């Protein structure tokens, strides 16, 4: 009985901590202004990034060499994005009301994840350029 109670409370706390942690990682990326280079590569034009671009952006991130220090953040945001996707598929479409607001919030969160992926790609591209310029000099 006590074990079951601890299990339920721990899972609930885990979900809450995980959501806050993922959002804290995403929040840091929102201060990052995307460079022209990353906009050119990804086709992002405005200040918004579509949530549907997330998977493609992560594929590009994986192709681009990085220092590896962003791996944990990428994994956390990827899991958060998948969780949001599952929730979105459970919310029935409605023209207005709480269901509509929930769906729009979930999409906004997923778009924030996509922006994080674009920022991660930008940082990796900058890292690669630095490596290349060091290589050329030596």
């Amino acid at each position, binding site marked *: 009985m006590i074990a079951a109670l*601890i299990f339920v*409370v*721990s899972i609930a706390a885990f979900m809450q901590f995980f959501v806050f942690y993922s959002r*804290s*990682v*995403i*929040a*840091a990326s929102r201060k990052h202004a995307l460079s022209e280079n990353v906009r050119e590569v990804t086709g992002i034009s405005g200040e918004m990034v579509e949530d549907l671009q997330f998977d493609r952006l992560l594929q590009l991130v994986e192709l681009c060499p990085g220092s590896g220090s962003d*791996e944990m*953040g990428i994994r956390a945001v990827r899991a958060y994005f998948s969780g949001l996707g599952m929730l979105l598929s459970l919310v029935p479409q409605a023209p207005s009301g709480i269901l509509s607001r929930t769906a729009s919030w979930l999409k906004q969160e997923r778009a924030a994840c996509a922006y994080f992926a674009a920022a991660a790609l930008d940082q990796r591209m900058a890292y690669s350029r630095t490596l290349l310029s060091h290589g050329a000099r030596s």
Partner: protein
Amino acid sequence: MSDAFVYTIWILSFALEVYIVVRSLVHKDFRRYLSLNVFVGAMAARDVAAFFVQMRYGFTSLQYTYTYYYTDALLTILMYLTIAYLYFEVFREMHFGRYVRGVTLLLLAGTALFSYAVVQSNTDHLTGRFVVEMSQNMYFVGLVLTYLLWVAVFKLRETRARLVQLILALGIYFSATAATFAFRNMFPSMHSMAEFMGPLIGALLPMAWAYTFTKVPENARLVPQTLAGVVSHR
């Protein structure tokens, strides 16, 4: 559970733990995050000890079980000290340091006395289910303490991004570990699944802390209230 998986996670955890301590030394942050570094260093030492015991006696040996659970109990006490340090940091400006130190000492003494009393009355079955239950309770206490700390961060509008992420990562670690032990306690026949999850969850904390120390600057600010509400982005 494949040996390759366990060894990969082991090496990854150990490398990240060493990285955190060495990075603190290089950046002259070791004393600033003393209890955290001592805890991470102890985790690395435990990984090495467990690795050699496992190599010599095997995963299923009594020696490995004793090494794992005794070092885990010691690590939990060090983790309480880390939580105390985080409390101290959050309440520092309110000059509650003296009280935090007092409560920490009380908590440590209470945990030690409680553990001693339980061990004394269970000397005939110190392995197996008893240790699982004991670990489950200790991690759950850690989770409650971390949750209260998170509430304090929220109410006091603590904005140090590094501190916020360190606390959230600790919350993830405690809740996942307490849930795993509780699951194992509820379904002893499914222990292999819990044993599979153990190393993975163990690697989460060094991964998250290494990420925080590398990517989040000391002076970075974050308003925790924005994490609970709708985030508007660019």
